[in-house]
């Protein structure tokens, strides 16, 4: 497991006024692992002994001159090379005290940077892209320098890599939002130009880092959206195309870092070894959105290995030499030692797992028979996502149709084929892996269906909904489509499984369910759960009258007569006694009731629901209220509903809906003659509830009195008591 150790300060900084610039031009390695050369952005070069946190020597150019590139150390000659004012190359040794007395040479073009790494010669990169070896340049300082770059193309970043056989100067450029990579081989000189794939428009790489391994040069670059890409270029190189045509540079997404809010601004990624990268200026995934962290990620396992909060402003600069990271932040340049041992699986599993959008969200992993049958040399553990297994899966899925192909197919193929392929796809792959593509699949199906009135694949859609990977936001048209196609089963599934149906859609469903003809409703099948619940409920219609919550229809009738007085009610009441009262008969058909129950059980918020409820006509409202009343009465009779474990609305849900409906339509209902009886009934509900509560209040009061009687004993001025000691 990689680790970051306690850091320490190498030196203080003098950041520029606007704070955007750290004031460090560059940090370069010196003779050994304990020495670095720090060039600040104004005039001085300082040699530090790192472990002592102590400057050993310092050189400054004269007032008025500025250093334009960071000083480098040439270990072969033990000389320092720097460039001042763009064109003056300065070379000196440690024993030179004054920079002005050192060797100077003026060249004919502006220098971008001088690079020198151990085992290679110093290389001079000019601003317009030309590359010279330092020795060759100094032999004739005024030699003409060609222009390699096009107009408006400028260098963004450069480095120098020495391989066994060759030395490379690598630099990236930007031209009108396009980014290019130049690979300049030295001796013999060849130049390759690659075009970087475009990220989202307007995003250009924040940092580059190049490394050489296994005869390949690996370029690592970080985008503000947190994506870290790697591009691999062979050392040998392709056949150079003299036309100067830029090859597209293939890239692979190594990591998608969490970026928190907004894009990254000052961030940098640095490859530490084949499996680890250090990133500074990104948020820690478990520490909120503050972007002031230094993290080491394992790219193989996508795991965060170590993280450290960095105080002060981060400038997006990061250097690493000999297991030390150099980071300017705030007003200091800090050294943070790190360690990246070879990753083992066990250690990789230790810390946080990187959540990649393509990866599963996998709350539960459902074993797929297909997987087990066809992938006998199955993965030891699903969490191990090595590149290899990913490749094998890809190759396996390519044996039949890929997601993409299925998507294409949906757009054109006839119903049967689509149905077959979708079924195949769903049965074949581990559904958990497919979640994002399922959404795509569903929305493609829905859009095809919307375009093509003849096209409809109810079973596929139902199957998709059943995966529980979909939600309303993924395919917003699905519910309305199901309503339109009178696919009530699908509607029921959606209401059941979508957690995020907006109130408008709920209301639309409600309206459709209430107003549909019973013939329509009884066509097709519904979820057996809800149906069997309703069947038991209706079967109890003739059941004995119970008395629950202090309410029974007869007592309700008594109250009613109290309230209204009229003699007619007495006769009506007699009638009720002989035949079952009308509110005891389910006012809607079985399937309709089941669907309405689904509506009752959806989540909603009153204030959003109310305006949509007003769309219902008074007839619809009365019918729905009658149904709710029926449910309420049923629930009041016995304590049965929830005991079945079937999917059923709760009593409070029913009452809430009654309240919301009355809120939305009260004035209308008062004016509607057929609603009168209903309202009176509901009024008696309320009355009975009020009575119940008041009775409870009385009980509470008397219990409290009991409590007081035992607790309070007034002693008064004088009493005679008996106490017992043990």
């Amino acid at each position, binding site marked *: 497991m990689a680790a970051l150790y306690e850091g320490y300060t190498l030196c203080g900084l003098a950041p520029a006024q606007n704070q955007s610039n750290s004031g460090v031009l560059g940090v370069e390695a010196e003779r050994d692992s304990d020495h670095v050369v720090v060039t600040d952005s104004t005039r001085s070069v300082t040699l530090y002994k790192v472990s002592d946190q102590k400057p050993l020597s310092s050189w400054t150019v004269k007032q008025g001159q500025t250093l334009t590139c960071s000083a480098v150390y040439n270990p072969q000659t033990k000389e320092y090379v720097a460039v001042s004012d763009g064109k003056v190359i300065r070379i000196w040794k440690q024993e030179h005290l004054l920079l002005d007395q050192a060797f100077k040479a003026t060249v004919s073009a502006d220098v971008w940077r001088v690079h020198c790494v151990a085992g290679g010669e110093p290389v001079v990169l000019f601003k317009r892209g030309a590359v010279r070896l330092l020795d060759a340049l100094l032999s004739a300082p005024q030699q003409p320098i060609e222009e390699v770059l096009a107009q408006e193309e400028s260098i963004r970043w450069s480095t120098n890599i020495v391989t066994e056989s060759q030395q490379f100067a690598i630099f990236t450029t930007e031209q009108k939002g396009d980014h290019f990579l130049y690979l300049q081989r030295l001796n013999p000189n060849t130049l390759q130009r690659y075009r970087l794939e475009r990220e989202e428009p307007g995003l250009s790489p924040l940092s580059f880092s190049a490394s050489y391994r296994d005869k390949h040069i690996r370029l690592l670059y970080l985008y503000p959206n947190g994506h870290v890409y790697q591009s691999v270029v062979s050392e040998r190189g392709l056949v150079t195309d003299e036309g100067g045509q830029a090859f597209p540079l293939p890239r692979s997404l190594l990591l998608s870092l969490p970026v928190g809010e907004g894009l990254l601004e000052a961030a940098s990624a640095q490859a530490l070894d084949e499996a680890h990268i250090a990133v500074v200026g990104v948020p820690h995934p478990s520490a909120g959105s503050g972007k002031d962290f230094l993290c080491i990620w394992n790219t193989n396992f996508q795991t965060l290995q170590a993280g450290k909060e960095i105080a002060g402003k981060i400038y997006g600069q990061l250097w690493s030499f000999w297991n030390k990271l150099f980071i300017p932040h705030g007003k200091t340049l800090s050294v943070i030692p790190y360690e990246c041992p070879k990753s083992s699986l066990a250690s990789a599993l230790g810390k946080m797992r990187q959540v990649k959008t393509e990866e599963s969200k996998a709350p539960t992993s459902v074993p797929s028979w297909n997987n087990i049958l066809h992938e006998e040399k199955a993965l030891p553990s699903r969490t191990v996502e090595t590149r290899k297994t990913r490749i094998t899966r890809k190759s396996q899925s390519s044996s039949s149709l890929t997601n993409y192909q299925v998507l294409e197919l949906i757009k054109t193929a006839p119903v049967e084929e689509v149905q077959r392929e979708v079924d195949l796809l769903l049965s074949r792959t581990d559904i958990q892996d497919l979640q994002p593509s399922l959404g795509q699949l569903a929305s493609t199906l829905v859009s095809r269906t919307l375009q093509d009135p003849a096209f409809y694949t109810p079973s596929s859609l139902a199957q998709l909904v059943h995966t529980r990977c979909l939600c309303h936001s993924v395919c917003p048209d699905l519910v309305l489509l199901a309503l339109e196609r009178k696919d009530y089963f699908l509607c029921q599934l959606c209401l059941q499984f979508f957690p995020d149906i907006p109130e408008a859609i709920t209301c639309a469903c409600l309206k459709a369910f209430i107003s549909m003809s019973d013939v329509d409703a009884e066509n097709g099948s519904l979820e057996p759960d809800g149906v069997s619940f309703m069947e038991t409920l209706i079967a109890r219609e003739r059941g004995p009258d119970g008395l629950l919550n202090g309410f029974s229809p007869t007592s309700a009738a008594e109250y009613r007569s109290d309230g209204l007085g009229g003699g007619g009610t007495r006769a009506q009441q007699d009638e009720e006694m002989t035949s079952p009262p009308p509110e005891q008969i389910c006012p809607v058909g079985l399937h309709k009731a089941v669907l309405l129950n689904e509506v009752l059980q959806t989540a909603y918020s009153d204030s959003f629901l109310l305006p949509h409820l007003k769309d219902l006509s008074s007839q619809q409202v009365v019918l729905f209220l009658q149904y709710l009343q029926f449910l309420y009465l049923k629930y009041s009779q016995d304590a049965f509903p929830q005991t079945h474990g079937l999917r059923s609305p709760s009593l409070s849900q029913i009452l809430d809906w009654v309240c919301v409906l009355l809120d939305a339509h009260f004035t209308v209902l008062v004016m509607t003659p057929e609603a009168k009886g209903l309202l009176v009934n509901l009024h008696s509900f309320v009355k009975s509830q009020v009575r119940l509560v008041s009775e409870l209040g009385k009980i509470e009061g008397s219990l409290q009195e009991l409590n007081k009687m035992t607790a309070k004993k007034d002693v008064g001025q004088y009493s005679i*008591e008996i106490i017992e000691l*043990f």
Partner: protein
Amino acid sequence: MGEFKVHRVRFFDYMPAAIRAMAFNRRTERLALARADGALEIFNFADNYFQEKVIPGQDGRAVEALCWVGRRLFSAGLNGEITEYDLENLRPRYTVEAYGGPIWTISGNDQGTLLAVGCEDGTVKMFEVLEDRIQFQRNLDRQKGRIISLCWHPSASLIAIQLGPELLAQSSSEVVVWSIAFLSDHTIISGDSAGKVQIWDGLTGTLARTHLVTKWDVLALSVSQDESSLVAGTSEGTVVQFQFLSSTLDGQNKDWVRTRTFKNHSHDVRALVHTETAVVSGGMDTQLVVRPLLDKVEKNTQESAMRKMAFPHRSLVCCAKKAGLLLFQFPDHLELWRLGESDGHGDLPVKRKPEKLIQLKRKGEDHICCSALSPCGGWLAYSTVTSFRLYRLQNNTISITKVSKLPKDLRSAHQLCFSTDSSRLFASSINSSVVVVALNQPECKYLHTLKPKSGSREPVHLLFASEDGKWLATANTACEVQVYNLDKIKLHCTVPVYGSCPTAIAIHPTSSNLVVVHADQQIFEYSLVQKEYTEWSRRLQKQGLHSLWLERDTPITHVTFNPKHPAHIILHDMFMFCVIDQSLPLPEAKTRLFNQMILRSLPEPMRILHRHAFKMCKTFQNLMCVRLLEDHSLVVVERPLLDIMSQLPAPVRQKRFAT
């Protein structure tokens, strides 16, 4: 163990007087406290805050300020007099008129050579402290207003004077500076009626800093001896602490910073003392509060616990146990009550209500300092610092007749006690002596005076005559316990002196063992026959008392025995009464001391396993008195603090939300 029939009495309307002034003697660790009725109390802070001495007040003596000069205590009051007290005989020694009108403040210099008093007429008068008196030395220049507060500079060459009322130009309201403090660096700190604590530079006379601490008055100030901490008492009942701290680490630029606020009083804090480890405050709500500063004491020790002293550490109730009468002592009168009766068994409705038989007003202007009722209920005696009175009571007809011919040795007493057969009266007198008087119808006769051999001059504050009339035990504030043989009329023995003051003594009726309880809560049992500590006492000392017992913060004020169970000792403090059964094992450190509730819940056979010697009952609170009557019923006299609070004047109004 047994049932007690308890007469629970709450009709003793004891009302302590407000605390007016305090002075702390750092050398002897004695706190002198003056109450509004002129009474003086001396607390020994070194001995568990025991209230050692009480000097009763006097009508017209309103003590405004107190001051220690060495071991001598001076007070000054609005009657315009300076009084020095005789702390051995518990009376004023002499009084000097200052001739400057009412005196508001008195202060002695650190050297103990001069006393300065601030008078109503605007003069500061200096008195020289002589060996046996004080002598007027000179007047300082007369100021325009009255001198409310004055303070010596530690070097004694300067004196800070506060005039009041002082008119502030900008507010045009009268602002009185109630209290000032003068530090050695010439800083003067003042607390005023505008609620401000102000820090002045005494050399230049400029205001350095103002802290507004209350909307009401800042009445009292006190500075710690090292001058690093200052407390201010306000009318709201809060005490605000200021500390002289530096705001930076290097210790430079120290400033007075408000640090803590204590709210232990409901009314004005009139008197404040900053001791080394604690803030001692008192005021209108009559309670003395010792609030340890937690940065000065070890945490979670007994020392760090806050103490509130609400009741006197001596008994104001006397009980005639044969007659069932109670005598309540007030500063200016006595009340004699007869207890009620019940039907005898079971739940006890009161058959006969208690009745007040006699209310006896004292004569003269001195307050009553002690009183006694004979066990038979036939004699009543009380004493002030100047006079002694004895009355003969006829209970059946409720008549009281003063015994007119009294022996002249019986002029005044610190403590009174009747023998069990009511034939003798013992009165503690000057120089630790006890005067014995025989009571015979109709006159009384001086018998003799018992004197200790030690020659101690400290007053006797506890007297106990044994049941059989053979022994008389006395205890004085020098911690000496003497036992006299009344048959031989001579000193029988002196109990080895223990370092803490005895708070209650009693002699066992049958075994003649003397039980002494001390202010540090230790209990000793001393055999008068063998003249040594008893086996039980040694065992108790060896094992040590339970920590919860030792942590109680009110002293045991009475010890008695149960004739039915000779092994039982009954004692009480303010919050509990306890029956110690000497036949049971002593509680060990880890056993639960308060185990009555547990025992109650256990079945009978199990109780035996869990019993220990200390049977403590907390049913009754704020106890003034617990006595065992001859019919084995208990009398407990409670005085709920709430009842005292309800008789206090309304506190300053404080704005709260929704009021």
